[in-house]
């Protein structure tokens, strides 16, 4: 974060380029939360045990809540209303990473994604608490508590399953190997990174990635898993620029189906 002390309490205080950068940042955060929240909610009713079903569904709902709050912030910055942003854009207008688009797979994959994604999310919000863009800093503070639970939940599960039986350990390792290239897609560099860093708005994707890798290494090695070297992985980039996997379109069709029947309906 830059040493600059200027605080932007309103988006109107940002210059044109800064505003584009801030919106880009918020759009990709909101789209990640929306799509992963929707994906994780697919476990509702199918979770491995009743108690976990409820906990996982509840956290999926938290993600949708975060998406809504972020879309509302965009709305206050002259964008369309949250429902319109969430349900009416074309596929290539979404800025989510490929990681969140993938189907839920088996529970080991969903848990590993939950762990890797939420670790990155926690660090992102943590750094945004000190953002010079005050509305975003306020949101970050608001979500701190629930995100702390999400990361705790994921870490306890990862530790539990990685140390249980030969089969569960092998499954966790396989999921980790499968998830890593996708997870690195979270940190796809943005053309606004430098500007946002210099304005004290955001620490930048590269910094976030280093902190994230250090953290997940600590947790995963404690659990007895082998963490792939960063240099061995080709990250799955493209999502932040609107190039998505084959899995996003069917998800959007299903998610937006009811809304599109009658966009004017009062809920």
């Amino acid at each position, binding site marked *: 974060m830059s040493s600059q002390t200027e605080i932007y309490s309103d988006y109107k205080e940002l210059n044109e380029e800064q505003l584009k950068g801030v919106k880009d940042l918020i759009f990709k955060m909101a789209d990640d939360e929306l799509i992963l929240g929707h994906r994780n909610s697919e476990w509702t009713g199918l979770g491995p045990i009743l108690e976990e079903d409820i906990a996982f569904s509840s956290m999926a709902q938290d993600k949708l809540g975060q998406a809504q709050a972020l879309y509302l912030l965009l709305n206050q910055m002259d964008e369309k209303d949250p429902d319109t942003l969430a349900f009416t854009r074309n596929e290539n207008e979404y800025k989510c990473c490929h990681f969140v688009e993938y189907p839920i797979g088996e529970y080991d994959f969903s848990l590993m994604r939950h762990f890797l994604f939420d670790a990155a999310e926690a660090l992102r919000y943590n750094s945004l608490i000190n953002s010079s863009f005050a509305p975003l800093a306020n949101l970050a503070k608001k979500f701190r508590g629930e995100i702390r639970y999400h990361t705790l939940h994921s870490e306890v599960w990862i530790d*539990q399953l990685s140390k249980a039986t030969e089969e569960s350990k092998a499954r966790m390792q396989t999921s980790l190997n499968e998830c890593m290239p996708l997870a690195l897609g979270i940190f796809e560099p943005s053309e606004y990174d430098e500007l946002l860093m210099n304005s004290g708005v955001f620490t930048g994707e590269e910094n976030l990635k280093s902190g994230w890798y250090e953290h997940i290494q600590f947790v995963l090695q404690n659990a007895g898993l082998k963490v792939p070297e960063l240099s061995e992985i080709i990250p799955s980039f493209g999502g932040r620029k609107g190039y998505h996997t084959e899995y996003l379109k069917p998800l959007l069709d299903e998610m937006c189906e009811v809304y599109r029947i009658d966009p004017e309906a009062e809920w």
Partner: protein
Amino acid sequence: MINARFRGHFVLYNMPIKSIDPRITRANIEIQEKDSQTGEQVLKKLDHWQTYEVFAQNKRGEHYSHVGSLHAPNPEMAWILAKEQFGRRNKITGIWITKTSDIFSVTENEEEMFELNSEKVYREAGGYKVMDKINKFKKQNKKGN
């Protein structure tokens, strides 16, 4: 005679996985193997998680109340599951968790002992007739101001 009187306790002690969670009773799971150390008939490892009882506090300083039970393999897992189970709709300030099998419970066959003697009303809170005095004192104090 003494055995019969405390039968309820013996049932709890001798079958550690027997649960007071009705879901387990309904599932009617067969006991599958002998514990190698104690020789007790227990459920096969990993086939079934034990139950934990959860107590939650709604406000700092208040008593913890029993809010329900859940399945978990250890207290740490029980806590992460309990948090969403019992703390997602209303705000809570604390959670206690204990193994169901650690609860010493006395309910059956003890109805007689729990009954209150109608001649001992002086022990019941309603037996104290002090509200009149308190109200009188409050009234006087108000006048004084």
